[in-house]
């Protein structure tokens, strides 16, 4: 029961926390020549997290090794396509990154809020009053 208690919000929180770091790195390197801005495809990451991963493998022999559950985020880092090219080869566009950063912070807080509500609901159920 307790593995799925927070539903999608737990994974969404991890994804948003990872993305904060990637976007912070982009903003930090806004003036670095030849730096290429990167980002996760948030929707794809979350879709990868919620999908049950296709068909499970069956262990037909005692010697087969059981697959460990995958805890890493399934999305890979992609490079951002800039709206305008720059002379120094840098593809960071600070307004874009700032907007994405603000949006991601909201996503993080939304997930956190949902988890927080679940926790208070559970403590209400435990205390019974």
């Amino acid at each position: 029961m307790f593995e799925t208690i927070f539903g999608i919000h737990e994974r969404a929180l991890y994804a948003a926390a990872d993305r904060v770091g990637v976007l912070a790195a982009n903003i930090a390197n806004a003036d670095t020549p030849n730096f290429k801005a990167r980002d996760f495809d948030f929707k794809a990451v979350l879709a990868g997290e919620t999908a049950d991963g296709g068909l499970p493998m069956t262990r037909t022999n005692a010697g087969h090794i059981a697959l460990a559950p995958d805890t890493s985020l399934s999305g890979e880092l992609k490079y951002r396509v800039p709206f305008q090219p720059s002379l120094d080869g840098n593809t960071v566009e600070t307004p874009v990154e700032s907007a994405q950063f603000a949006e991601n912070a909201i996503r993080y807080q939304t997930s956190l809020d949902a988890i927080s509500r679940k926790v208070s609901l559970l403590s209400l159920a435990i205390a019974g009053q």
Partner: protein
Amino acid sequence: MSLLQVFDVASSAVNAESMRINVTASNLANAESLAPSEQAAYHARHPVFATQLKQFSSDPSLDETAVGVRVLGIVQSQATPLKRYQPDHPLADANGYVYGSNVNPVEELTNMISASRSYQGNVEVMTTARDLMIKTLSLGH
């Protein structure tokens, strides 16, 4: 990657940008400096930024998504310094010339604006990361 690494990344950028502002201040301060020879004249300095990759960093906890920025070095402008004929000047050479700096004030001021904006952006990142962490810490209260 943990939210704590955001502070490492953003502070490396704040450090680099503050060095850029420092160098700009030095250039603007010396824009009117005079010297007795072309070699001794003040040459404008500019920092070169590079990505702080994991393999060059001593911190093993940095993962590949956490890339900060570092100042690779300072380069001096190779533009020809301004030469002025002022034989009565105490720094004048045998031919009566004094040499000014090769600082371009327009370039310096735009650099300063750019550095100041980037600095503010990174401070904003740190503030947001701090708020998120404080909210996470008070989870369930």
